[in-house]
């Protein structure tokens, strides 16, 4: 069975292409959204999802979130007794999602299509694949998030000959894609984005403003306190989306903070972030060679796009209201399910063909001669232009710098800057040249081929001798080697995970512990409740536990509502 997975910065979802179109699977707690948080409890069990998110407040040292932003880097996080790479953390989330899917369908999941931000780099995409392998499934196809959203939306709407722009502002990433649909073809014209812009950054803005106004230093706050504060602010941020003013009440020890913020002020504070969204939007429109009037719809997806300032930005730029009747949280996952159906060649989807683009420019490093005849090094010569429809293969002729050169190093770069030093180096290819030849005799054809799975192949042919050199870019700094993946897979197998039927208990305990940290006044009460629940858990009577769990949950709801 092939599933579609939206592996988000803050939330993840799983689903498949069923008989009636894409369906999502709920997790053990009955939610579609599983928070992308991993936590390790005292006995070394790994906890994923809502429970882990609650533990972010009570046990910040043993929990980690927003690790999607570190994908493609070798950064490791220490949880409990073990270090985790971002791939492994993602793999834990994936495992939990797969367990949900298997529980819902009763079938074994063998393969998945995972959505990634369109602007993810090569290394980040490879890391995502590695995470899939670590979770024990095959990941051949990655789908860009805006494309997925458009797929879900477009198929649902059955528009024909429509061009639209998908604006995807998630928890940690920002993506824009311009697409067109006609006759069952979903054609992506352009994608652009910012991998470090998302809802979390808006939260940071709020946090900074709060601390500045209440004369608090962010560094003085303990991790617990910070977690509590961010939770409050997150709630306030959502409230600002709907109303015009939000209130934040927070107790820190004896201190009580009462802070009000209205929508206008929030918009002013986040002006910089909003401005940062302009460039990718403009770039995508320019690369698609479209004018705002030529767009039919603007689709907002991603949880953070609910903020009114996003809608305002879009309407200011495009002179129209964005479309909001897709569920911004689920659109991408639904699209990933459609992509999974496409991958499986589902007969019901045979009419749909998706063509995507390569969001980055790929090229090589060249030298140039300036007016004074001096050699200037480090220029970027694009070969595959960004937003070329993939699969794509382009070739250009290059020459060595000097006569009688014996070796040529072809460096492969990805990025947009005209100078290579500010782009990302993907690899290099050493080409020995026949000796004693002039520059023109040593010219070579360099061909870059970028396939539909995002693998770049570099091929250089020495024109004079037809000698062929090849480089397939599999290895990147910050990406695990296959052997290492196998080793880490072994290690991950040994990690203990709470059985799925126990997860509700874990979640409710985590919530109780969070409330214990947050509400000082109710601590004795909560302590009693927790002790009582523990006692009942030990009885191992499912019926009793279920009943008590329900009551416990209701009691905590009441507590949260009252304080």
């Amino acid at each position: 069975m092939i599933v579609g997975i939206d592996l988000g910065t803050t939330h993840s979802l799983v689903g498949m292409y069923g008989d009636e179109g894409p369906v999502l699977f709920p997790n053990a707690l009955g939610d579609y959204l599983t928070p992308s948080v991993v936590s390790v409890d005292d006995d070394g069990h790994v906890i994923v999802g809502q429970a882990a998110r609650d533990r972010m407040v009570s046990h910040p040292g043993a929990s980690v979130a927003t690790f999607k932003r570190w994908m493609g880097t070798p950064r490791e996080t220490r949880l409990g007794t073990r270090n985790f790479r971002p791939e492994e953390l993602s793999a834990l989330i994936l495992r939990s999602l797969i367990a949900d899917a298997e529980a819902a369908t009763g079938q074994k999941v063998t393969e998945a299509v995972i959505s990634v931000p369109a602007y993810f780099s090569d290394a980040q995409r490879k890391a995502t694949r590695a995470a899939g392998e670590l979770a024990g499934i095959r990941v051949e196809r990655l789908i860009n998030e805006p494309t997925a959203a458009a797929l879900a939306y477009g198929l649902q709407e059955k528009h024909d000959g429509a061009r639209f722009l998908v604006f995807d502002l998630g928890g940690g990433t920002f993506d824009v894609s311009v697409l067109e649909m006609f006759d069952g073809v979903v054609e992506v014209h352009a994608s652009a984005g910012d991998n470090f812009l998302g809802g979390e950054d808006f939260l940071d803005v709020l946090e900074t403003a709060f601390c500045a106004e209440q004369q608090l230093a962010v560094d003085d706050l303990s991790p617990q306190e910070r977690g509590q504060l961010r939770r409050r602010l997150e709630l306030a941020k959502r409230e600002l989306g709907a109303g015009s003013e939000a209130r934040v009440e927070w107790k820190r020890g004896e201190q009580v903070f009462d802070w009000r913020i209205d929508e206008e002020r929030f918009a002013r504070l986040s002006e910089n972030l909003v401005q940062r969204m302009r460039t990718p939007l403009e770039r995508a429109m320019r690369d698609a060679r479209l004018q705002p009037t030529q767009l039919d719809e603007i689709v907002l997806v991603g949880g953070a796009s609910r903020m009114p300032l996003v809608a305002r930005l879009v309407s200011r730029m495009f002179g129209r209201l964005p479309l909001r009747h897709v569920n911004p949280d689920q659109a991408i996952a639904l699209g990933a399910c459609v992509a999974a159906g496409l991958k499986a060649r589902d007969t019901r989807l045979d009419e749909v063909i998706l063509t995507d683009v390569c969001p980055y420019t790929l090229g090589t490093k060249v030298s140039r001669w300036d007016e004074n005849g001096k050699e200037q090094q480090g220029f970027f010569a694009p070969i595959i232009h960004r937003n070329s429809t993939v699969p794509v293969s382009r070739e250009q002729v290059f020459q060595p710098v000097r006569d009688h050169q014996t070796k040529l190093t072809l460096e492969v770069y990805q990025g947009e800057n005209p100078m290579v030093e500010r782009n990302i180096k993907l690899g290099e290819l050493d080409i020995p040249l026949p000796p004693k030849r002039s520059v023109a005799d040593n010219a070579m054809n360099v061909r870059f081929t970028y396939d539909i799975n995002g693998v770049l192949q570099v091929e250089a042919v020495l024109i004079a001798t037809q000698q062929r050199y090849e480089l397939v870019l599999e290895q990147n700094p910050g990406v695990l080697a296959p052997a290492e993946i196998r080793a880490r897979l072994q290690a991950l197998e040994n990690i203990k995970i709470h059985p799925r039927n126990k997860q509700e208990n874990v979640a409710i305990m985590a919530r109780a512990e969070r409330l214990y940290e947050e509400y000082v006044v109710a601590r004795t009460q909560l302590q009693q409740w927790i002790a009582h629940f523990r006692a009942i858990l030990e009885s191992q009577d499912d019926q009793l536990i279920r009943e008590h769990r329900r009551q416990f949950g209701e009691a905590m709801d009441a507590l949260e509502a009252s304080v």
Partner: protein
Amino acid sequence: MTSPLEWFGLPSDADEREIKRAYAKRLKTVRPDTDPAGFQQLHDMYQHALVWRQHVVERATAEPIRTEPEAPSPPPQPVAPPTEAPSQPRAPLPPQPAPPSVPHLPQAPQGQRPSQSSPVPPQPSPAPPSLPHAPRPPQAPVQPSPPPRVPAPAPLPPKTPAPPRGQWHPVQFTQPVAAEPPAPRFDPDAFVADYLDAAVCADAANVQGWLQQRQELWSLRTKHEAGRAVLQRLFRDPPPISMSTFEATLQFFDLDHALAGIDPLQLQKLRVAMQERHALVKNIGPGTQSWGASRQRLDVTQFFHWFCEVAEAGHHDVLAANLYAQPALRSLTVRQQAAPRLLERLLRERPPMPQDCASLLLNVFGLGPLLTQRGQHPGELVAHLHMQWLTLPRNIGKLTLQVKEPGERFGDPAKATRRLRWLQRPFQWWWITLAALVPKLLHSMGLFAWRFSGGVPSRLDEFFDPRLTRFCIATADRNRVTRQRVWVGAVRCALLLLIGAGITAWMLASGAPTGDSDAWMPLIIGGGITACWLYYLSFTALLLWQQRPEQPVQPRPLLRLGLIPALVAAGLALSLLADQLVAAQALLLSVAALSYLRYQRRNPRQRQFSPITNVVVLIYIVGMAAWVVLRFPVVSAGLALGYWLADLARQRKQLQLRYRPPAAALPVPADAG
């Protein structure tokens, strides 16, 4: 293949919808995941077809009957997007494009998208070298496309949001949507002026904020246009803008990426230029001058006075910093308007100013082209003003430095003053004749004039009597046999002969016998020296003529080539037939020397021997050779011919035995060497 439409099996008047349908149909069999190569070809053809059709539509709408302004296409992009307002039901194309015969169509796809043409685009023009090297020739920094005067697209009425669906409801907006403002026509020049006001010597964050707050830049088209306009202006005359501000600007307009079409080398040059100017303005920190406070106009009179005053004092940095920082001079239009009046004054008053200040003035106001239009050379004006400035008494130090001898370190100001004064007298024959008798005088005067003029003697004409300076310079020229040199030599020889004749006459008069050779001696010595001088002169003239490199345009090539063999033949004839051994020897030795020197100068030596070997071998050979050569005239004839043949062999490729007059008259070299 003629048309991409045919490739799809479509009629040549197929519309966009049909192309897309055909593409979609083929895509069902050529899938991107199973047949990448086929897909790429299909997609490329599809792109071509769209561009092709675009051209058909443009041609059709460009016909005289223009029924309605069609949706404006973004002008600066190479490929215009399909013009079609998709939000409305598709209107039938205004005038159905007349079925165009294929050969008349512009060969759109080939030139339009070089990056996406055929799957294997042959790139046969690898131009300037690079590491692996870029085949693209360096592009011009910005395509100076005329600013497109297309009205901004009419603001679209905000669409009514579709009815709520599922559990998601449209958002409640707290404030009315700011639709695209009904912008008055965007004026790039005004915008650039505003930008410069905001950006010159300003903080990067402020400039960024200023750009972000500009209402009109929210329109994609306007922003694109504005970005290009700003960059074009910066390239034309880099203002003093700090690096961080410039980077922020580039980033805002999204111009600093590999596909922006801006040559990174040019951009680097621009960065350096702006940084220099920014540092200059920052160091000097000029206040606003009274002539430059207004943005709309420049007070030319006041400005000119101020400029001349500061320039005469030689403060180039102060001038530059002021020119870059004044609001009046930021606008190129203001400069353009002021330029003619400024040039008038400059030409009328000719104020003395150093070279760098004059160039600055010319550059900032673009006076160079104006001068060229009037048939004057800007460099000449600059040089004139500079020379005038050098002749000011207080700049004698600069003058001395310019005219010093190569061996001297600083030069002698007193000498320079003296020579300047000497050159300022009028040209008189008797005076020159007298001066010719003073050794080295005319020669050093010539060198002085030559250095003072910077190598272009015609510049001296406005300062000194041209006949005098030309005479001196021609005398100083050792590389040519000029009339002036002949004249100076002749005067000196004549004096010598006169003296000799005088002494002889005196000795004869004082009673020496007529047959006494002692009495005739002074005259004979004088005659001998004159003869030597004449011999030297003619030898030099011949050598100079002979040593010139082979060029197709030289007149009388055969005569030039045959001179040496002819002279050798004459010498041999003299010795063998007429039995005039001494005359023959003299002639043949001269010819041998001529031939040798000619060979040496025309074929520069490549191999070098160590000096000691040279000296030892030379003494031996010369000693032996002199004996042999003096005995047998044939040897010297052989030497001459040998060198001549060697030269012939070496120069055979350049040899042109026919005189081919040049197509256009070559510029006559200046009257000096």
